[in-house]
């Protein structure tokens, strides 16, 4: 092993192909997109240099602020929901269901394997008000509550998105965190139990600190995934009603491909990249500080 990794030729042969593909499909488009922020135009007419016009437009565009605000709200709420429920489920698997957790794990994980568009269509039907009531409105009517036009106002449409995305992904985080929890040595738990730690005290003093690294990974996964949300919202509300559930990604997509403003679209993409980078660095830093203190 030492010999192989010490041989520069072997390193180049092993890494070269992957590096080349990565450069072609990731780095080149990213740098290309970065370059486009200084141009205006589209694939039809070609591109003209625009200096800093796109950035000037960015700071005076109220829709960008709305989209950033929506993206942050969505990312925070969904991340908290996914992690808290996922962690709760994983605790349930490990400490309550134990060996019998297989079937529950499979059932809760099942929505993860469903296509997002199919899930979105299902939720559209569940929350429908026209042409006929979906099951949710029928349920409300049963208790004498009037039907709600769930996709008719920003607040209720957001609520449906939150419910759908948490339902869709909590199984994944439950399995991810479950993997972290089963790694905690049984002896540590046993000795904590002998010392009288039970229930919440056991979780908060022993399990939680020991599963912090995997929790941190889950938070980074989740926040980056949710900041870049696209398909579920496109399929469920298409950013509506109006533009009230339009995240940055969807606005970028519309700007580039519907309005034909590739340069400005790339500028919005840059904002999203900076946002993701900033949040990830923030989480890493705060986590490092915690570890030092601990």
């Amino acid at each position, binding site marked *: 092993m030492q010999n192989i990794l010490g041989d520069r030729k072997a390193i180049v042969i092993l890494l070269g192909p992957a590096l*080349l593909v990565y450069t072609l499909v990731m780095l080149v488009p990213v740098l290309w997109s970065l370059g486009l922020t200084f141009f205006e135009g*589209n694939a039809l007419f070609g591109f003209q240099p625009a200096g800093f016009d796109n950035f000037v437009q960015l700071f005076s565009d109220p829709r960008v602020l709305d989209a950033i605000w929506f993206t942050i709200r969505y990312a925070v709420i969904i991340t908290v929901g996914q992690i808290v429920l996922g962690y709760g489920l994983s605790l349930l698997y490990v400490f309550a269901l134990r060996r019998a957790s297989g079937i529950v794990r499979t059932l809760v994980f099942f929505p993860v394997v469903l296509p997002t568009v199919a899930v979105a269509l299902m939720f559209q039907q569940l929350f429908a*008000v026209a042409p006929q009531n979906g099951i949710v409105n029928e349920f409300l009517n049963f208790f004498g509550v009037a039907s709600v036009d769930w996709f008719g106002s920003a607040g209720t449409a957001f609520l449906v998105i939150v419910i759908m995305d948490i339902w869709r992904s909590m199984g994944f985080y439950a399995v991810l965190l479950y993997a972290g929890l089963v790694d905690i040595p049984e002896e540590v738990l046993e000795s904590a139990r002998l010392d009288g730690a039970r229930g919440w005290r056991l979780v908060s003093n022993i399990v939680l600190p020991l599963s912090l690294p995997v929790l941190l990974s889950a938070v980074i996964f989740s926040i980056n995934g949710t900041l870049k949300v696209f398909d579920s919202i496109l399929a469920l509300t298409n950013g*509506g009603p109006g*533009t009230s559930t339009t995240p940055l990604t969807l606005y970028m997509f519309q700007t580039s491909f519907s*309005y034909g403003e590739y340069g400005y679209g790339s500028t919005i993409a840059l904002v999203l990249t900076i946002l993701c980078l900033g949040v990830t660095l923030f989480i890493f830093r705060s986590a490092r500080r915690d570890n030092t203190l601990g």
Partner: protein
Amino acid sequence: MPTIHLRPLRRTLPFVAAAAIAVTLAGCGTSSDSGSGHFGLLINDDNAIVQDALTSLSTGACEAENKALPLDIETVPQSGLDQQLQLLGGQSALPAQFAASGSPAVTKSLDEAGQTLDLEATLTDLGVIDDIEPAALSTIENLYGGFIVLPYQFNIEGVWYNKQIFAENGLEVPTTWDEMVAAAQTLTDAGVTAFSASGEQGWPITRLISGYLYRELGPDALQRIAAGDAKLTDPEYVAAAQAIADLGAAGYFGAGVGSIDYDTAVSQFLTGQAGMFYMGSWTLGAFNDPEQNQIGEDNIGFFPLPEVSGGVGSADQIPANVGLPIAVSAKGYNDEVGKWLTCISENYGTESLAEQGTVSGFKATGDVGDLPPLTQLVQDTIADTTESTLWFEALFGAKATLTSQQNAAQLVTGAMSAEDFMAAVQADLDSE
């Protein structure tokens, strides 16, 4: 030692990389659909009339052309059409025929980029230019500045109403806007949805705004906006949006208008759940289909949007258009496509009228038999119309069009005020 081994690799690596890039880029090469042996058609999925008529032609009058170059239809949702057109246009990979965007500005830009075929010259060369109805030709030239799209449809728009529901509620055909609103109130009180409309699409609602504007301010109301002589935020324009918002506030569109898609809106009207339905005559295909039309074609009446009291427009000025027209790719044109175009020009008018019961911009030269009464009504109305108007977004760019259609449902559900709606569209117009 390793450096000695590495030298040959250093020399060859750039070549390997260059070859890999060349292979990758070759895969991105341009191609056109007709070049790949198909007579491609990219079209929105909410209107099957053109697809049905062309499919029917491919096994009928144009069978020989279809054998040489088989028809290949690909559908996309209307909301994704502009993106597809711009992406494919950017790669010169548009199929032989493609639905023009809902925004004529996008089609015009495709034309400026040399992607659309000059049909005036082509059809003249092919000797079939006389198969195009002059009225359709002039409508296309008004909209696009040239003959760059085929008039597979020639439509008028107005209010279709359920005669039985009107009779049961003692209603007459309204002649003023106020009478129409009063009729809507009567229907709502009787538990019938007054207007069936698709808020999901948006455009069925914004066309009511333009309808009101034309009645209130005259047929050049939106040309003044395009020319910059007026703004949508001017009080008289906001008043039109407010009039439509009021229809929504009174519940005339029924529950959940924002979730109702085009097919649902059509079926609401054709199953007797709604009294009125503002739509273009392209729905004749559905009206003439007994499976879809459960209220019976004799039960459907038509009136143009009525006049607004004190307004300068007249109910004789009827919105007319060439449907969602189809452009022909300049890059994908060849002799076989030319043969298809000749066959279409000679036969589409008859096929559309006789088989689909819809009026197109092609002359119907063959035997069309007895026309369904509603088709006859549309033909007569087209013949009697001396001045036509355009739809709300006809002169807007892609951005303002999308903003208008995306927010239309919010206007009638009260989530957005008339001022905010018009201001949002005007802001996009200003930035275009």
